[in-house]
């Protein structure tokens, strides 16, 4: 029953039948994600734009761990790509109110990375820019 419902329902199961095929595939090591790049800070264009993860202590006092900001940036990127305007606004607001404590202009860029190296070093290969956004002062 579990097998049948796993392939014949959109949820992959029909209560209370479940195939128990969990974590069957190892996630890909090389994947595409998104990063936030600061290009303008307090109305001044930066000579060398800085990625958000490298900006702690330079532009923003709040120290954040990768899991704190990575998820929100990734979901923002995914929603920009999908054209989900409402969700873009929702995640943009979260980022601008929680992480970017100063008026900034920032870009969301596509990145490619090795999951394991990224976890350890945060290193990635920069790809195409998908949006340039300005944090509104009233939101800050």
């Amino acid at each position: 029953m579990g097998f049948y419902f796993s392939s014949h329902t959109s949820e992959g199961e029909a209560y209370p039948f479940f195939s128990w095929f969990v974590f069957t595939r190892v996630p890909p090591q090389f994947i595409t994600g998104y990063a936030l790049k600061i290009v303008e800070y307090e109305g001044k264009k930066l000579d060398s734009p800085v990625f958000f993860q490298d900006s702690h202590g330079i532009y923003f006092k709040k120290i954040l761990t990768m899991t704190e900001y990575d998820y929100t940036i990734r979901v923002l990127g995914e929603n920009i790509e999908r054209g989900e305007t409402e969700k873009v606004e929702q995640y943009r607001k979260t980022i601008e109110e929680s992480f970017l404590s100063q008026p900034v202009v920032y870009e969301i860029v596509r990145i490619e990375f090795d999951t394991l190296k990224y976890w350890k070093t945060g290193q990635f290969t920069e790809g195409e820019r998908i949006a340039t956004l300005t944090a509104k002062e009233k939101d800050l």
Partner: protein
Amino acid sequence: MKQITTIKKYLSSIFPFSIESFAARGKPFTKAKTIVQFFYYFLAFQALVVINGGKFLSQEENFSPVWSIPWANHLSLATTANIIQFFFLISAFIGAFFFQNRIARIFVFLGIFQLNALLSSVLRADHHWYPWLYVSFLLIFLPDAWAGKAHSLQVRKKFLLVFFSAQAVTLFIYSMAGLGKIQGAIYQYFAGQTHAFAPEALALHIAYWLRNIDSTSLLGSFFVEHVIVGWPLFLGMIYLQFFSLWIAFKPSLHKIWAFGLIFMHTGIYLTMDMLFFPTALLLIFLFFDSPFKKHDTSWRETVGDLPIFGWMLRRILFRPGNSHSIS
């Protein structure tokens, strides 16, 4: 017909497990009865724990009632949760008081069935209570083994058979999870992808999962940074899961295997921040003092019962003529 007899003979040589021989002795039956009794007692305590936890109540927008609670379509999540949790509490206490009665056991099953329905209507892929659901369903079929003092062999046999089926279904779930990983590994191997038998498998699962759920764990970073340490553990987990159903027929390994599975759940929590507490509890109940385990089982017999390794060790270490051979 001849082939079936041959297969039967072959299987009973691998799994010399007979419910009848256990039923003939009094102790396994008495022990199984006590475990069943405490299963229902503890469920009452669990019901109190469950009504205290409302972590999903903030998820009104994700509330989509499954088929078994159609009446919830007209109610809010909070009202539905209150009704179901109250029913679960009542049914669990009915079970704790009257577990000897089949009607009471049906009530308990319905309580868990509704609770699971509630969780599945809010939190997708929430299967914490599924094993309890299956076990409580099977326990409905227990014969009346509490009335009177003497019980016929037939009653004892039926009781132990139901109890064994509860053990088997719990272990079957793990075997399915193991089979899924092996099937996925074969697919990924031929697709040229990183597969479950590769050293990076555990590290990738942890890094990807924690990133997806936006969480951290106590040991997650360690295993992502020390890929090779996680390799034998992940392979061990697949072995443990895949051969679980096999273990149902090897009572000498019941306790060790259950401990291994609980250790696995603890490891998953410490690395991936995912806890299967109700299932761990069920494993303790069903296997830590299994009615089918003989008390005079030697360690050699236990090791010899291990899937694959036991077969190898029996041939290498415990050969007939060897002073350490199994008697």
